[in-house]
C-alpha cells in the first residue's frame, strides 16, 4: 500500500510539473465528455489573499448584527435569530448562492450535490438539527423523542452501500469478500471497541463522543495527540482491510489521510453518532438528490432579503461603538460599509487574517494552526445506470465505493427517485486529494484543466465500469481548494480551538472550523451558538 501511494504521488507530481503540456496534448484515445470546470469564486476569494485594492465604500448601512458567510453555520445563525423574533441582521455571502459546502447543481436529468450530500439521523444531543429537520418536514412528531420518526422518502433508500472488492461488489462498506477470517476478527474487535467508546461518558456525565462535539466531554489529550493510524497500531490492529476502512472514514469525513488525522477525530467518526429513529436503523442517513442543499436552500429561502449574496467582505475594523465591515458588491462594482453592533464570522477562519488587520493576536496565532483539505467532486451524466459486468452480487446502491481506490467512489444522485424510470442519471464522484500536501494539491487544482481531472476520474471509475468513458454524456468537475478543516493531531490536541471558540467583545466566530472537522451538525451548532450569544446580550439594540 505504501509503495502504491508513493508511486501515485510521483506520477501526480510529474503530471503536475508538466501542467501546460498536458493541457494541450491529448494523448488519450478516449474523447473527453463535454463539461465544465467549476468551483468557488476564486477570483474574488484571491482578491483577499493577494490584498488587491478594492474601491472604498460609497454607502454606509447600519445593522444590529452582521453575519458573514451563508454556509450551514451562517444560515443556522440566521434561522435561529428568526425563530426568536430577531430581524435586525444581515447575512453576507461571497458566492452567488448560499449553501457553502452543501452547494448543488441541476441539469435536465437530475439535481446533484457538489459537496455535502447526506445527514446521519441526528442523536439527542443534536437538538437544533432535529428541530430544523422537523421544521423542514423531514422529521415527524416530537423532535425531542428518543427515537423520532423520519419522513421515509428522505431516509436513504435501500440498497444503501456497496463495496467493489476483489473483483466484485459486496453489500456494505466493511470489506468482507475475500478477506481472511483473521482480518475479520480484527474488524470485529475494532467495532466492539468503538461501540464501547460510543457508550462512554466523561466526568461531566456527557458522552465522550457525540455530535455536536462541543456537547461532549472535553477532548482527552492522549487520543488527540496521535494519528489514527498510530492509534490502530498501538491497539494491535494490523489488518490491511481494517486500515483501509478506517482510512476511508477519515478521508470521507475529513478529507484527510488517517496518517494525518488525530485519533480523537478518527474515533469520533465511528463513536460519535447516536441517532436513533422509530422507522430506521441507527446508522441510517437522510439524503436528497441535491444533497444537503435540500436543507440550505430552504433555510436561505426563509431568510429572504436578509441574505445578500455576491458580497465580498474585504476589510474589518473595530470602531469605538461597533464594527465597520467594508464589502465589495461586484454586481454594482462598488463597496458599501456595514456598521454593525456585533459581528458573527461564519466564513472559513482562514480568511480573517487577510481582511482584519486588528484581528486579536491569540485568534491570529490559533488560526495559523488550521489547514484545509482540497477536494475534487465530479458529476457525471450518463444515459442510463452505469453498465457493469453482469452477475453482480449487489445492485447499484446509493453509495458505491471501490476498495483501495483513489476516489471515495460515487453516489447515485437519482437513488431517492421513486419513479421506475431508469433513463439517464447522474453519479457524483468524490475525491479528497488527501495523498498530497494540501498546498501541492491546491496549486494543481488551480492550474490543471478539467481534462486532467476528468481523465483520472474516468480511469478510477473505469476499473469497475469499463464503458464509463464512452457512456458519459457530461462530466463537470468542481474543485474545492479549501473544502474543509483538517483535524490534525496538532490542531485537535492544541489550544487553538478553545481559544477560537471564545467570543471577543463584539465578534464571535461560528464555523465548523471551531470543531476541527467539517460536519453539517457542527456548523449548525456553532451558528446557533452565535445566535444565542447575540440574543443573550442584554445591551442589544433590537
Amino acid at each position: 500500500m505504501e509503495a502504491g501511494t508513493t508511486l501515485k504521488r510521483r506520477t501526480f507530481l510529474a503530471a503536475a510539473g508538466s501542467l501546460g503540456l498536458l493541457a494541450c496534448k491529448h494523448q488519450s484515445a478516449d474523447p473527453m465528455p463535454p463539461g465544465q470546470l467549476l468551483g468557488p469564486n476564486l477570483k474574488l476569494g484571491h482578491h483577499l489573499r493577494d490584498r488587491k485594492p478594492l474601491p472604498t465604500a460609497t454607502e454606509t448601512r447600519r445593522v444590529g448584527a452582521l453575519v458573514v458567510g451563508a454556509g450551514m453555520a451562517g444560515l443556522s445563525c440566521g434561522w435561529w435569530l428568526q425563530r426568536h423574533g430577531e430581524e435586525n441582521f444581515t447575512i453576507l455571502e461571497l458566492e452567488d448562492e448560499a449553501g457553502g459546502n452543501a452547494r448543488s447543481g441541476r441539469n435536465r436529468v437530475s439535481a446533484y450535490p457538489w459537496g455535502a450530500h447526506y445527514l446521519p439521523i441526528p442523536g439527542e444531543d443534536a437538538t437544533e438539527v432535529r428541530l430544523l429537520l422537523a421544521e423542514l418536514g423531514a422529521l415527524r412528531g416530537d423532535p425531542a423523542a428518543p427515537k423520532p420518526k423520519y419522513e421515509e422518502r428522505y431516509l436513504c433508500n435501500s440498497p444503501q452501500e456497496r463495496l467493489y472488492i476483489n473483483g466484485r461488489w459486496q453489500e456494505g462498506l466493511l470489506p468482507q469478500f475475500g478477506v481472511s477470517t483473521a482480518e475479520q476478527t480484527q474488524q470485529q474487535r475494532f467495532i466492539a471497541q468503538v461501540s464501547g467508546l460510543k457508550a462512554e461518558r466523561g466526568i461531566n456525565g456527557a458522552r465522550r463522543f457525540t455530535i455536536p462535539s462541543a456537547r461532549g466531554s472535553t477532548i482527552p489529550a492522549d487520543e488527540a495527540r496521535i494519528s489514527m493510524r498510530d492509534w490502530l497500531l498501538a491497539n494491535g490492529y494490523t489488518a490491511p482491510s481494517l486500515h483501509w476502512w478506517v482510512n476511508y472514514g477519515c478521508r470521507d469525513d475529513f478529507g484527510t489521510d488517517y496518517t494525518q488525522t488525530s485519533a480523537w477525530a478518527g474515533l469520533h467518526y465511528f463513536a460519535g453518532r447516536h441517532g436513533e429513529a422509530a422507522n430506521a436503523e441507527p446508522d441510517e442517513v437522510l439524503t436528497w438528490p441535491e444533497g444537503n442543499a435540500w436543507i440550505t436552500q430552504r433555510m436561505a429561502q426563509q431568510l429572504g432579503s436578509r441574505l445578500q449574496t455576491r458580497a465580498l467582505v474585504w476589510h474589518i475594523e473595530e470602531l469605538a461603538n461597533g464594527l465597520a465591515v467594508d464589502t465589495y458588491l461586484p454586481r454594482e462594482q462598488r463597496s458599501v460599509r456595514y456598521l454593525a453592533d456585533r459581528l458573527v464570522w461564519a466564513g472559513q477562519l482562514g480568511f480573517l487574517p487577510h481582511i482584519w488587520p486588528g484581528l486579536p493576536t491569540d485568534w491570529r496565532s490559533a488560526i495559523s494552526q488550521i489547514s484545509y483539505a482540497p477536494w475534487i467532486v465530479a458529476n457525471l451524466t450518463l444515459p442510463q445506470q452505469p453498465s457493469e459486468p453482469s452477475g453482480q452480487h449487489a445492485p447499484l446502491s446509493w453509495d458505491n465505493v471501490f476498495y483501495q481506490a483513489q476516489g471515495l467512489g460515487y453516489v447515485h444522485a437519482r437513488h431517492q427517485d421513486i419513479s421506475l424510470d431508469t433513463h439517464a442519471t447522474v453519479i457524483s464522484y468524490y475525491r479528497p486529494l488527501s495523498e498530497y500536501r494540501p498546498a501541492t494539491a491546491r496549486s494543481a487544482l488551480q492550474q490543471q484543466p478539467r481534462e486532467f481531472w476528468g481523465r483520472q476520474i474516468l480511469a478510477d471509475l473505469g476499473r469497475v465500469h469499463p464503458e464509463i468513458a464512452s457512456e458519459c454524456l457530461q462530466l463537470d468537475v468542481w474543485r474545492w481548494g479549501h473544502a474543509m478543516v483538517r483535524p490534525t493531531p496538532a490542531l485537535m490536541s492544541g489550544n487553538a480551538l478553545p481559544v477560537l471558540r471564545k467570543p471577543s467583545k463584539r465578534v464571535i466566530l461560528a464555523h465548523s472550523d471551531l470543531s476541527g472537522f467539517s460536519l453539517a451538525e457542527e456548523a449548525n451548532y456553532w451558528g446557533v451558538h452565535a445566535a444565542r450569544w447575540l440574543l443573550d446580550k442584554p445591551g442589544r439594540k433590537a
Partner: protein
Amino acid sequence: MPHILLFSVFVVAACGLAYELVAAALSSYLIGDSVTQFSTVIGVYLFAMGVGSWLSRHVHNNLAATFIRVELGVGLIGGFSAAMLFWAFAWISGPFLLVLYLLVFVIGTMVGLEIPLVMRLLEPKLQFKELVSQVLSVDYLGALAVSLLFPLWLAPKLGMVRTALLFGLLNAAVALWTLWLFRTELNQRKLLWAQGGIVLLLLAGGFAGAERLSSVAENALYEDHIVLTESTPYQRIVLTRWKDDWRLFLNNNLQFSSRDEYRYHEALVHPGLAAMPWARRVLVLGGGDGMAVREILKYPYVQQVTLVELDPAMPLLFQTHPALRKLNGDALNASRLRIVTTDAFKWLQETEERFDFVVVDFPDPSNYAVGKLYTNSFYRLLERSLNVRGRAVIQTTSPLYARQSYWTVVNTVESVGLHTQPYHTLVPSFGEWGYVLVGREPYTPPTTLPTGLRFLTPTTVSHLFDFPADMARVPTDINRLNNQVLVRTFEQEWKRVQR
C-alpha cells in the same frame, strides 16, 4: 452376392432404427415428456414392424422389385419424416400426435417388410441356419452402429432433418444397388430405374437444401411460438403463442397465459368491485394488458376507468394487435377508459383525484425499483387516493411459495392504517396466487357478480378468504423505502421454489 445383400441388411437396419430415433427425439423435443414419447414411439414402431413382417406373406412374386419399392418408399417417407414432423408441429396446430404415430406406423410397417423380403431373396443362396444367423446379426449390428452414431454425431452435427434425409439416401442407394444386382431378373426395369432416380434426386435435393428446409421449419416453429418481442426503455416484452395459448412475458417473467388469465383477473377485480355498487371511478395501476380493465368494464355503472401504465408500448400493443384485442375484449379502446402513461408512484403523488376502487397490478417485487411500489410510503399515497368508502386491491405474489413476502405486504398495508382482507386463488400457470383488498372500513363479500364470468361465483368468492395452515399469517417486518425487506425476502423465497 450374398455378402452384398447382407451389407444392405446392415444399412437397412441402421436406417430403420434411425427413423425411430429421429421420431422419438423430435417428439420429445417438441412436446416434452421424453419417457412417454420414446416409449410410445418405440412401441408403435415395433408393432408396425410386426405388421410389416406379417404382411410380407402376401408378397408372392417379384420379391426383388417389391424390396426395391419398399426401400424407395422407406427412403422417401423416412427421409422426409423429420421435416414433415416439424411442419406438422409448426403449421397444423391440431393433430401433431396423430401425424407422428401415423408416420411412425407407416415407416415401421415398411421397415418390417424389409428383413423378411431380404431373407427370402437370400433363401436360395444360403442354408437356413446360416441365413438366420447372418441376417439377424448384421441387422442388430446396424442397429448398434446407429444407436451410437445418433446421439454422438448425427443429432448434434447434422440435426434431425438432415439425419433423416441422410438415411433416406442410404435406403434409396440400397434400392438402386439391389436393382443393379437383379437387373437381369427384373421386369419393368426402366420404371424402377426412373422411380429410384426420382427418389434419389428428391432426397439429394432435400439434403442439399436441408439447411434452408430445416430453418424454414424451425423458424416456422418459433415464429409462431414467439409472436413478438419488443425492447422498450423499461422492459423486454415477449409475446408467445402455443396453439391457442397466448403468453406475455415481461423481462422473462410470465404475466399471463390466455388459458387461465381469466382466473387471475376475475379474482383480481370482482371480489372488491362487485361489493361496491356505488363505484363510479376506478383506477388501474400497472396492468397495461387491459385484462383488468376488461373485467372492470363489465360494470355498467362504472363511469370512468383510468389506467396508469409506465411503458407506453404496453397499452399500444394491446390496443392494436388483433389477437390481443380479442383477448382483452378491446378494453383499451373503450370510451370509458383514460390511459395515462407515466410512473404510478409519481402520478399518485401529484394527483388530486380520488377513486372508488383502485386495482394495483404491478410486477412482483423482484428488484429494488419495483420494490418501492410495495412500501408503506406508496400505500400512504394509495390511501390518500381513495374516496371515503373507497377500496383497493393489490396483487400480492404467492402466499404459498412466498408466504413471508405475501404477509409482508399485508402487514405493510395495515401499518398505514388500512383494513385488509387477504385472499387467494389458484391460477394454474402461476400457482396459488394472493391478493389483498384494502380499505378504510371492513369488507363484506359481494352476493352478486356480473354475468358472463368464467370462474367466480358468489359461493367461490366466499371461499377465497380462507387460508389453509401452510399459507396462514406469519409475523413480518414493515416494508419501507429505507429497508426494502420485501425484495430480499421475495428473492430468497422464490429461489427456494425454483431449486
